């Protein structure tokens, strides 16, 4: 189950990064950057 969870987190993380690079508004890019932080920590099972 943990592997499935981590796969979902990785999928959402990649989508977030993809959106960030397609986004033209700096502040929306910054918002996406904030979302990346907890997703990385979850992907690595740190927090």
């Amino acid at each position, binding site marked *: *189950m943990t592997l499935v*969870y981590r796969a979902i987190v990785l999928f959402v993380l990649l989508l977030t*990064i993809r959106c*960030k*690079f397609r*986004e*033209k*508004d*700096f*502040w*929306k*890019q*910054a918002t*996406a*950057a*904030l979302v*990346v*932080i907890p997703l*990385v*920590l979850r992907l*690595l*099972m*740190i*927090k």
Partner: protein
Amino acid sequence: MNLKGSKLTAALLLLAALGIAAFAGMNFKAMWADDVFVPEPGFEKRMLSEWFSGLAGTPADTPVYIQSGDEPGGTVLILGGTHPTEPASLVTSVLFLERAKVTKGRLIVIPQANILGFTHNSPQEAHPQSISFTTEDGGKRIFRFGSRLTNPVYEWPSPDIYIHPASGQQLPGKERGNLNRCYPGVPDGSLTEQVAYALTELIRKEKVDLAFDLHEASPEYPVVNAIVAHERSMELAAMTTMDLEAAGIAMRLEPSPKNLRGLTHREWGNYTETMPVLMETGNPVQGRLRGRTDERLALTGEDKAYVKASALGRLYIPYDGDQKMEYRVGRHTAAIMSFLDNLDMFYEEKGVLLENIPTFGELQEKGVGIFLSPLRN
């Protein structure tokens, strides 16, 4: 302000996010380092998985220290660290671990019952990551200040509702990570339920006669400065309460509610032959009325809001501006020693006697740190 983004800004922001994640990650990972204890030489260190092999190799496996005296007697368990946000519980058990010389019977000390609760902090509580004490040689002893619940990295996904397996009692889903709602435990349950099962097995297999589960509670919570006793322990608890009152330490005595399930004072009594006792001291760092939350508050209990609450009659403890660690540890220590005296007096064959434990007065006078062992180099 309307700023245009580009691939370059996206890359820079991604780098910044990864940098912050790395910094935060290292901070969180720092709480995975084990606390250092210096057991009194008579203790033998074992692991909880010896009583339930299902815990072997998991991060929930926690050290169990056992010391036997020369004279035969009973067996007593001191369980600390059920809730890592209640630090007097851990510190009292460490005090016994580092000082107790057992002269009669056998003493088992488990300082960090839910060791996975010590590996993280509760979100949005602003709790410190650690507390520290100065030892006699001027050195520092540092202990982690964790969370009430098992680390969700290992205790997930939480159900919407936690149904206590032995009774069907329903609680909020996150309570499955609360060790003191999971007894008697389940061998193939969640990791927290397995820890509860292992502790119940230890009590059963080691024929523990008297078992303490040490806690702290908010000053505004009614069950505070209290002993909660199962029917089997009530006589001993009543004697101890009277002894403590005579010594100037006011103590409530509460019967373990028969319908409140999953807690030590109920399930250890129902599922083993031990006499279970849960004890609470007053701890403002857990309270909902507190202001600035830091190590100082955890150690001193000094808080302006609690002074006001006390003046308004909203607290269940006498509060003169603080609830110092030495006072809280002193209460637990004095109560345990009084229980042991009464156990030996009323059930001589089950008696357990200890030496070298500081008195309530000595702890008030000198503080806790002086009674902890300096770290060996």
